[in-house]
């Protein structure tokens, strides 16, 4: 029997109030897990918390700016205290709010968003280690990377480098934690229809080019990613660690990322 149940488990999802993070949180809750959500805006968190509670699971909203390591530490401590530890850490928070080439990008912009997209995940793993490692088999980390980790990302150097680092962290941590039974995997979504990409979709030209480059011929949904995430966090994936599962409708095999 293939076991996708997370009954009795608890999870933390960063960037959990919207988009992929919200869909992952709902998928985990749907499989039986209680979920703590971290995001910056309390009003978005409240909505997502209510949705999870609607599935009959416990939910906890923790307003968090992942750019600040101290807030990540507080998120881990608060969740561990409220839930009596946790089993699953989903590093999903990320942003790609601007584009500029390396020569024209402001260094502080690069540093800020490299921090949000990658360093935040390193800190979350670092602070969550004393909670996850004792849990042993059953505990896991899921990093939400991107196909940007696997391809060139002109004008998005902060995003592509951070996501590539995320894939590397996934492999390294998988090896460091394997002996304790804690698995570490990543998903690499391609073009997914979320608020983060709404601007691109608003332009019919870009919209058309993007879809033309996806062999499956449509945008991905947050639920497409959440399904992969749920599998990787479930007992069904207990022999999978250090893997990056690409969820992109076949786009990376075409070798093109940017319209």
């Amino acid at each position: 029997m293939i076991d996708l149940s997370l009954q009795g488990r608890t999870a933390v999802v960063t960037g959990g109030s919207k988009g992929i993070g919200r869909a992952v949180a709902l998928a985990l809750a749907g499989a039986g897990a209680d979920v703590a959500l971290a995001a910056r805006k309390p009003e978005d968190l409240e909505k997502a918390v209510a949705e999870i509670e609607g599935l009959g699971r416990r939910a906890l909203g923790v307003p968090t700016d992942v750019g600040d390591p101290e807030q990540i530490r507080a998120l881990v401590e608060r969740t561990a205290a409220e839930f009596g530890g946790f089993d699953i850490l989903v590093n999903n928070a990320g942003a790609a709010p601007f584009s500029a080439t390396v020569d024209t990008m402001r260094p502080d912009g690069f540093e800020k968003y490299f921090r949000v997209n990658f360093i935040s995940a390193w800190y979350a793993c670092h602070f969550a280690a004393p909670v996850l490692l004792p849990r042993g088999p059953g505990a896991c980390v899921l990093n939400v990377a991107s196909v940007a980790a696997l391809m060139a990302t002109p004008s998005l150097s902060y995003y592509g480098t951070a996501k590539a680092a995320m894939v590397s962290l996934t492999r390294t941590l998988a090896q460091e934690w394997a002996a304790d039974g804690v698995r570490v995997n990543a998903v690499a979504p391609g073009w997914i229809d979320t608020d983060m990409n709404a601007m691109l979709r608003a332009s019919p030209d870009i919209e058309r080019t993007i879809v033309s480059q996806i062999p499956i011929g449509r945008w991905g949904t947050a639920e497409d990613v959440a399904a992969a995430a749920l599998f990787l966090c479930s007992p069904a994936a207990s022999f999978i660690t250090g893997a990056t599962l690409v969820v992109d409708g076949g786009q990376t095999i075409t070798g093109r990322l940017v319209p």
Partner: protein
Amino acid sequence: MELRGAVAVVTGASAGIGRATAWALAGAGARVAMAARRAERLEELRGEIEARGGEALAVRCDVTEVADLEGLRDAVMERWGRVDALVNNAGVPGSGPLADASLEEAERVIAVNYLGVVRATRVFLPILLDQGSGHVVNVASVAGRFGLPGASVYSSTKHAVVGFSESLHFEVEPRGVRVTALNPGFVRTEGFPQRGLPGIVVMRPERVARAVLRVLRSGKAPEATVPGWYKPLEMFRLATPPLYRWGLRMADRVRRRLPDEG
């Protein structure tokens, strides 16, 4: 063994490896009895574990006093009625070069590091044998495998614990009980500050706590080493004895340059 719901006893739980191990066991869902001389520290840790929904018991206990160990056993049995794991972790640093230490100091090290393990194991063993299950993990040291110049008494107590563990393991294994000597390398704790050692060889106590959990989960016995790279060094002793002796002489020269030893 499955750690969720298991009952574990940890000696020397007020600081260092013992504290990290108690915390990790609680994190794994085990019920943890913590023993140490400094009861107020244990109470603090018990509060933290319970605040996270864990179950813990704090018992003042000097492992050199059999009456204290019996009190610890009775408290655990009264509260939970069983013992699945006994982690004999209480230990003190060596008394230094033999010629510089009083015999009294040396005998104190033997009483805590070696006799403490024998006494605690003897007090708890009948329970494990009656259950037909259980695991005793003795926190020894790589100094239980190699001579450590400048720490002859400390090193001999740890050699004794390794021998005790191996002998006892094969004595009780047919009755369902396992015994493991876990040999950590250099670990920086309150009792063992490890000043002057290169950072790369010094571990945090949490790393040893993880190893204790791995040993309990896997049932590995009668010996485990953390970090694993000390293991090949043992082969080196058998393969090239002159080189091994040269290594110990070098270790002594290094020690003389350090502010303290561990």
